[in-house]
């Protein structure tokens, strides 16, 4: 409509959190009437950037310009009033109220009822967002709910609409309906910033894509002109330092996973579908993939926290499917979950007490049910020493440790118990480089002693560095194992983005 040009200009935006640099001088131009993609893996900094644009987060440095005027939103309301709207991934609707009531509640300005109804009908018919105003939201499908959110956003006449992974909750049919709406919107001159990590989608509707990786913009391109493989490569990064591969001295098979399936009771849980894997002594299997694809469930199924709906687990040819957490641990199957505070460790307990969580039985920290705090403290001291955990001592509360140090402690607590099998999720998440490399070294050393190890990580560089075998976990399904040293970046990218069936 209006002449081509930039509506929103982002210059050198940086935002640093205590453990991570979420945005590192990010620049981006959003053009009039375009659907522009913001691509990247989880943790690449997309959400932070979008929150900055929508006024939810203040950047540490950098500037933004809206229509060549400096743009510095004080908050979401301010952003909306300046023409920046956002549709969130998770809806904020009241199930018990009608569509109309939900729309009214979401508005900043109160309007006359008739006037508002007319506006809603105008907007919805203009863009093909059919919806009946009297329906109760609780009875609507995800696609219809999303339409409410979009209408809510459109009523404010935004110039820019941000959509955060809008298709993650939709059925394929609803997705194509949404795309029609988005195309109409962009034709009428609206700029849409579309966040996703689904490549095919982006190739269908976006004409410009900005790819982020580890807080930086790595590439701007036209997704319709370059291949999905190329985009995937950019997302995961091609800067492979060819990992120093120790010779694989595979031992006997120690863990066999047969057709493992899991059906979550929680509607947001990820089902695990028919997972097969064999782990050998001394082998490190790397499981890559974006978080939220079943990683947490996978670890919990192996640790015994979750019961599979189908399939079996064998440890050294012994069926362990029915064993509980403690029984598995006693056999030497140890694990370290991703979430440090609240899952692997209790924030308000001391390190001595935190030892008891996984080491009570194996390290004999109790006798006939009575806990011996002296032994527990000794163990904690040893972990602190072995992993070089920087802390005030074993009496320090878990939450007083920095993320990296607590991670070292949590991993050390398992390592010191001489596991036969060790499963770890995100061993170096949010850990500084030095600590990360020390943790990786510990994992490699453990494998050298014959332990079978499964490392689940989003950090592909890490997996390439330490793992012998690589699989990708996408949508609860595991790709077939491939030797890590035979992988090339494009193959890796495709595995992760699951464009190859």
């Amino acid at each position, binding site marked *: 409509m209006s002449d081509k040009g930039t509506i929103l200009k982002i210059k050198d935006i940086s935002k640093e959190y205590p453990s991570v640099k979420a945005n590192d001088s990010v620049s981006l131009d959003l053009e009039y009437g375009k659907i522009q993609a913001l691509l990247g893996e989880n943790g690449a900094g997309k959400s932070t950037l979008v929150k900055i644009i929508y006024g939810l987060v203040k950047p540490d440095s950098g500037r933004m310009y809206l229509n060549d005027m400096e743009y510095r939103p004080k908050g*979401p309301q301010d952003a909306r009033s300046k023409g920046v709207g956002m549709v969130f991934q998770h809806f904020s609707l009241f199930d018990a109220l009608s569509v109309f009531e939900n729309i009214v509640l979401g508005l900043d300005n109160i309007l006359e009822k008739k006037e508002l109804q007319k506006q809603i009908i105008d907007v919805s018919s203009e863009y093909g967002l059919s919806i009946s105003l009297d329906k109760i939201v609780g009875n609507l499908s995800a696609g219809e709910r999303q339409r409410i959110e979009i209408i809510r956003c459109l009523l404010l006449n935004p110039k820019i609409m941000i959509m955060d992974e809008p298709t993650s909750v939709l059925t394929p049919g609803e997705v194509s309906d949404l795309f029609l709406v988005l195309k109409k919107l962009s034709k009428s001159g609206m700029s849409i910033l579309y966040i996703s990590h689904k490549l095919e989608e982006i190739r269908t509707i976006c004409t410009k894509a900005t790819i982020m990786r580890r807080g930086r913009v790595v590439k701007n391109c036209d997704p319709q002109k370059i291949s999905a493989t190329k985009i995937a490569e950019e997302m995961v990064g091609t800067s492979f330092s060819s990992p120093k591969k120790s010779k694989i001295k595979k031992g006997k098979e120690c863990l066999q996973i047969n057709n493992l399936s899991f059906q979550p009771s929680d509607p947001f849980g990820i089902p695990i579908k028919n997972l097969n894997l064999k782990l050998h002594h001394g082998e490190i299997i790397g499981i890559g993939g974006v978080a939220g694809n079943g990683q947490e469930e996978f670890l919990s199924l192996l640790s015994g926290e979750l019961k599979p709906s189908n399939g079996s687990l064998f440890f050294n040819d012994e069926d362990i499917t029915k064993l509980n957490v403690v029984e598995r641990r006693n056999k030497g199957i140890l694990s370290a979950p991703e979430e440090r505070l609240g899952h692997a460790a209790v924030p308000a307990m001391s390190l001595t007490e935190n030892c008891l969580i*996984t080491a009570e039985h194996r390290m004999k920290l109790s006798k006939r049910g009575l*806990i011996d705090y002296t032994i527990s403290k000794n163990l904690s001291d040893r972990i602190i020493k072995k992993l070089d955990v920087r802390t005030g001592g074993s009496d320090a509360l878990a939450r007083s440790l920095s993320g990296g140090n607590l991670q070292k402690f949590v991993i050390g607590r398992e390592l010191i118990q001489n596991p036969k099998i060790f499963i770890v999720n995100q061993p170096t998440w949010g850990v500084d480089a030095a600590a990360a490399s020390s943790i990786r070294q510990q994992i490699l050393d453990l494998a050298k002693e014959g332990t079978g190890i499964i490392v689940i990580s989003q950090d592909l560089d890490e997996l390439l560095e330490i793992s012998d075998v690589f699989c990708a976990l996408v949508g609860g399904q595991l790709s077939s194992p491939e030797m890590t040293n035979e992988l090339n970046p494009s193959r890796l990218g495709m595995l992760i983005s699951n464009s190859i069936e």
Partner: protein
Amino acid sequence: MLKIEPRKNRSNFLEVSAPVIAVILTMIFGGFLFLSMGKNPFEAIKLIFWDPIMSPTFSEYSRPQLVIKAAPLILIALGLSFGFRANIWNIGAEGQYIMGALFSGSIGLALYPLDAWFIFPLMILGGIIGGIFWAMIPAILKIKFNTNEILVSLMLVYVAEQILALASISFLRNPEGLGFPGSRDLSKYPSASNPELIANSGIHVGVICSFIAVVFLTYFLTYHRLGFQIKLIGQAPKAAKFSGVNVNYIVIFCLGLSGGLAGIAGMFELTGPAGLINIDFNVGYGFTAIIVAFLGRLHPIGILFAGLLMSLTYVGGELAQFMLSIPAAAIQVFQGMLLFFLLSTDLLVSYKISFNLGINNSNPKSKSE
């Protein structure tokens, strides 16, 4: 705008002084309450907190009453505190208390007038079983059908009250009682009575039992695996699962412990201070013990002091009712204030309130997560 933020480190000073501050605040605001009713606030506070212990006129009666009332509160609160630590909310201790009394009372009355040493211990056992039985109903329903133990245990209080009323007018009624409701007076039945051990001290077997329970449970909470697992579930349910804690087992244990202790408390009350089963046997110890448990920060030793303090407000409250004709409801409001201030000062131990004048993202309609 006002903002509540977690403190990085819990303030040790506040942790110790919070209950004291809460008591002082209760005195101040309670004083205003009494003032607004046209009573002399200083006299009322003095009657509640000082006279029961120190006044030469009243203490002879009040001091024994203090321990008599504190003992059931402490026993019940000790049991509740374990569950509360694990987020298992037994609100129905009052019902378990009644059932403990009914079970033990039935045993004693059935054996009347037999004179034997084993009757009293058997009645203690009956009290425990009665309390556990009543607590197992919410426990099993929770495990099997995931019902809410708060509602089930609370509703069972009213069921227990009905059974109590029925018992006192029918199957446990004193055959020599001229048709009046109420059972035989067990305190006058030597084999089943729970007499004062030291004259004019108020100390009976139940009081001794509650002190032993304090010591034992302190040890248990600190050193036993179950004590640790209970803390684990309360603080980080996910970590408890990761550790391999059997949550159902803990539910049974916590409800069983609180039910059993409430049942014992009912038994001692029945055989001692109350003497007989009657419609008005229960006076709310089971509910007040909830306050006592929190007032004592869910720690056995804290509960010991909290029970004595709460008992003081009861005994002193009665004194104030009697001397200044302050209505009973006002005394209850006063006790409610105590819990309110305790919980609010407790918040300040773990959280701080800050005034944030920076970014305005307080827009109530903002759709931010």
